[in-house]
């Protein structure tokens, strides 16, 4: 009540200076009158009265207080008005539950999806890394002929002795252990690291201590640090394990500490670490590039300076040891950049796509709001003032966006664990994605932004009234006068453009996934099972022991029920393991190596994988160490080594011997290429050696670890056969990584498939939303023009004419939007380049098919309500 009065007094209020002046003048007037009444001379009375008021000083004080008063009133009135607007908006929501539900769900889905993806982006890309000073922690790579790789021990040591621009230079290499203490024997992945590895990352142990320099010496390395997960899983998080002893691969280790989970961000596979303890022989070895190297840059130097120094030392190394390091250089990158890798771009593309879908959702809600405001234009016309109407409309969009934001956070909360579970392995730091403070702040910002986006256009429309009388007059006139259809057509055009971009990206990814799926891998993967086995060096010290054990295992497996073929391989297809060697074809100059992947196989291998033999023969049992040394190469290697010449009978040096005394092996067969790293990776040069012909030293290279391959129809039977066969030979040996090659393929394609799935979901959501938008606009137009349609039909227009006329209202903006979206898609899909397989980002077939799909969906969405219009009975329509 007082509010209403105040609003009125504000409306008719005089300026504060005037108010003060009038009030004081009135006061002086009365004072003079009183003085005169008491008999004072009028002139004297005026002087006395004015002196008392000291008008200038009092007036100034009053003006100041009065101004503050007005400001506080305005604030209060605004808040009060706002409160009323919100109350009104809430009432509107209650009275139109279907509208409210549609708007809130649409916004909720958009905000929820964007929030969930943002939380992933935040965890993977934006969040600071767990290790100390991420800016200064570097990954050092040794680069040979432009391709980055690992470090040899000799090279690592050469750099370690000379580097001055880094505080620490550490190395690690993955290893694995057969963990056999009180529990079941278990295969665990571990790392062998230089003593300063943990110091370099600045991650302290959660229990105990890390290694000291003395322990990083050959023969003193029997100390182990456990990962947090191993400690919890196997040792029940018991801190007293520190100081205890455990058995790994037949040797006894002292547990000196436990590393916190943060270390997973650098080395997520490792469950145990032991010191690397280079032997003098290893330190003198400049071949075999298997170490990962890390550096901590000095505070005062720049990354460019560190890179300069690495390049300088690499040059010195090339000069000192030219045989193996002639074309070798070295460089550093920030580890954080390497860890996040191309996930940064992938995730940002995903975030952008989900953002586009949110925009489409907002456009839909804006459209709904416009339709509802049109229905209320008479009520709006009565409201005074453009600012009031804008505030009223924005209040409604704010209420919708607030509910939408709440729904969105709920959706994100529910979908985030699902997203993490479905995501492929190996996305760094994904597990740490939560709805943290910054993510919630982003959700609030999204909701606010949505409110503005949804509300501003309708608000602007609502204020564009021609005259008050027009709105108050004919209801229909007001509708067409105030709310022009073009604004809604603009919205569906924009939706078409946005959805075209997202849809084109999804279509390209789907095509890539199909291409990848259809890509021949080079052999019949169906029914092939792989498993890995490692023999601990302690029990199987001599190569002969290892040979005998593997031979027994293989014989057992071959004899088992359900196994048609069985073989051993140092590197099974799609299973990581073993290394690369530099091969020298006979006749090539020294140093002209072909980097090639090695397989040490039993003769049955080619029967198991069944990849076509292109020339020559496969291995037989006769290919022993006593027989002539032989090798089988793949087509890629044959081309690289001998061009178009027939490779059979030619010789290649590898694996043994020295630069001065090459060890020649004769090529006896050429087999078809196999995509052993997955369908998307190009075939590499590969060579095969008979397992029983490899030198004794090779058992050390492979870590006495081999893959068992079987082919058969029954996976369960083969799995059981492998386990039983190994157990019969040595019950303390764990068999690990048992899986079919098809599972391996799936795992490799999981990344591509996951991205494709997400983009397809987004595109489908966008398409459905856009279709709903088009549908609602045409339905609204039909409702507007019932009378006109009735007239046309009465005058003889056919149903088809009516459908065409009405759908064109929806299709015209869609076609324009599509054209814009098409151009946008051509620009945007370039970002997908790295994720595409055998399809160009601008692939015309995909883009045109996408546009066609969009057009068909839009036409259907427009035709449906237009078709309803034909049901209008002309006589009823005209009478209305």
């Amino acid at each position: 009540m007082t509010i209403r009065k105040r609003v009125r007094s504000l409306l008719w209020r005089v300026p504060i200076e005037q108010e003060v002046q009038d009030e004081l003048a009135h006061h002086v007037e009365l004072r003079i009158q009183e003085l005169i009444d008491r008999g004072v001379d009028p002139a004297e009375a005026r002087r006395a009265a004015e002196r008392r008021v000291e008008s200038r000083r009092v007036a100034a004080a009053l003006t100041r207080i009065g101004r503050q008063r007005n400001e506080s009133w305005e604030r209060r009135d605004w808040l009060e008005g706002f409160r009323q607007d919100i109350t009104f908006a809430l009432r509107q929501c209650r009275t139109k539950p279907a509208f409210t539900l549609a708007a809130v769900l649409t916004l909720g889905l958009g905000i929820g999806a964007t929030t969930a993806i943002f939380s992933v982006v935040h965890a993977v890309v934006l969040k600071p890394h767990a290790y100390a000073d991420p800016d200064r922690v570097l990954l050092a790579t040794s680069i040979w002929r432009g391709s980055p790789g690992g470090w040899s021990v000799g090279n690592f040591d050469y750099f370690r002795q000379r580097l001055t621009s880094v505080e620490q230079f550490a190395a690690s290499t993955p290893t694995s252990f057969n963990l056999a203490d009180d529990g079941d024997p278990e295969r665990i992945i571990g790392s062998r690291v230089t003593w300063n590895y943990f110091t370099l990352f600045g991650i302290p142990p959660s229990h105990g201590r890390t290694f000291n320099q003395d322990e990083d010496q050959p023969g003193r390395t029997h100390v182990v640090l456990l990962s947090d997960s191993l400690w919890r899983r196997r040792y029940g998080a018991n801190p007293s394990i520190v100081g205890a002893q455990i058995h790994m691969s037949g040797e006894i280790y002292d547990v000196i500490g436990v590393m916190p989970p943060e270390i997973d961000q650098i080395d997520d596979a490792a469950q145990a670490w032991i010191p690397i303890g280079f032997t003098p022989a290893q330190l003198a070895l400049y071949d075999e590039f298997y170490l990962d190297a890390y550096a901590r840059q000095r505070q005062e130097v720049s990354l460019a300076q560190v890179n300069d120094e690495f390049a300088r030392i690499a040059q010195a190394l090339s000069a000192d040891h030219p045989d193996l390091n002639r074309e070798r250089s070295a460089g550093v990158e920030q580890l954080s950049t390497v860890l996040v890798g191309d996930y940064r771009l992938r995730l940002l593309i995903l975030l952008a796509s989900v953002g586009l879908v949110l925009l489409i959702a907002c456009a839909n809600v804006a459209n709904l709001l416009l339709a509802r405001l049109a229905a209320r234009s008479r009520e709006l016309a009565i409201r005074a003032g453009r600012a009031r109407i804008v505030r009223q409309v924005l209040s409604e969009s704010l209420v919708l966006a607030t509910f939408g934001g709440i729904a969105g956070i709920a959706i994100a909360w529910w979908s985030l664990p699902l997203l993490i579970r479905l995501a492929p392995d190996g996305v760094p730091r994904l597990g740490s994605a939560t709805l943290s403070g910054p993510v919630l702040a982003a959700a609030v910002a999204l909701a606010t932004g949505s409110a503005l986006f949804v509300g501003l256009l309708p608000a602007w429309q609502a204020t564009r009234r021609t005259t008050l009388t027009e709105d108050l007059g004919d209801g229909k006139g007001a509708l067409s006068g105030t709310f022009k259809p073009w604004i809604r057509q603009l919205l569906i055009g924009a939706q078409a453009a946005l959805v075209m971009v997202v849809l084109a990206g999804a279509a390209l990814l789907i095509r890539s996934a199909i291409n990848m799926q259809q890509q021949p891998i080079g052999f019949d993967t169906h029914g092939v099972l792989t498993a890995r086995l490692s023999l601990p060096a302690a029990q199987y010290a001599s190569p002969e022991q290892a040979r005998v054990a593997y031979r027994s295992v293989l014989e057992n497996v071959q004899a088992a029920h359900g196994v048609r073929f069985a073989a051993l391989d140092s590197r099974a297809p799609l299973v990581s393991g073993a290394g690369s060697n530099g091969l020298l074809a006979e006749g090539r100059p020294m140093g002209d190596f072909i980097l090639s992947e090695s397989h040490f196989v039993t003769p049955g291998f080619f029967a198991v994988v069944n990849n076509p033999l292109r020339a020559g023969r496969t291995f037989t049992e006769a290919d022993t160490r006593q027989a002539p040394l032989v090798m089988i190469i793949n087509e890629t290697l044959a081309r690289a080594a001998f061009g178009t010449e027939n490779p059979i009978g030619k010789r290649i040096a590898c694996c043994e011997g020295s630069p001065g005394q090459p060890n020649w092996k004769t090529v006896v067969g050429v087999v078809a290429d196999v995509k052993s790293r997955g369908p998307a990776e190009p075939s590499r040069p590969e060579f095969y050696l008979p397992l029983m012909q490899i030198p004794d030293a090779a058992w050390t290279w492979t870590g006495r670890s081999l893959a068992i391959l079987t082919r058969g129809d029954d996976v369960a039977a083969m799995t059981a056969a492998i386990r039983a066969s190994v157990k019969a030979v040595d019950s303390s040996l764990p068999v690990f990584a048992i899986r079919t090659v098809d599972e391996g393929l799936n795992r490799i394609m999981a990344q591509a498939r996951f991205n494709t799935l997400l983009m397809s979901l987004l595109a489908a959501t966008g398409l459905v939303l856009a279709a709903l938008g088009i549908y609602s606009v045409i339905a609204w137009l039909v409702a507007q023009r019932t009378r006109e349609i009735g007239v046309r039909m009465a005058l003889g227009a056919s149903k088809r004419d009516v459908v065409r006329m009405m759908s064109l209202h929806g299709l015209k903006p869609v076609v324009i939007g599509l054209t814009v979206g098409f151009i946008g898609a051509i620009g945007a899909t370039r970002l997908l380049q790295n994720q595409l397989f055998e399809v160009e980002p601008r692939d015309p077939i995909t883009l045109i098919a996408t546009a066609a799909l969009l057009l068909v969906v839009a036409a259907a969405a427009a035709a449906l309500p237009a078709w309803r219009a034909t049901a209008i009975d002309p006589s009823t329509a005209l009478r209305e």
Partner: protein
Amino acid sequence: MSRYPADFLHGTLDTLILKTLTGGPMHGYAIGRWIEEATNCGLELEEGSLYPALYRMEKRGWLDAEWGTSELGRRAKFYRLTRAGRQQLASHTAAWAVFSAAVNRALVKAVQS
């Protein structure tokens, strides 16, 4: 009450004005005259104190003002108590009773000792 007693005397003028207006709407001059008469000692109320006090109380929402016509037939600003003003008057009056009783007790005691 928290301003007790430092700002107490300052608040006394406010209380007197609020008390004055319990009789109905009045303009500034009449309020001043009424206080002068009611205190019955020709307590000369400075305009430099009265009007700022009125404006301040209007800002706080204790008073409402409206333009009306005075007894001389001139446009004048009339002040009236609001609900908040009435509450303020009640609480200040009670506080004043406590305060003046306390001061009285102290003065009486000082004389005796």
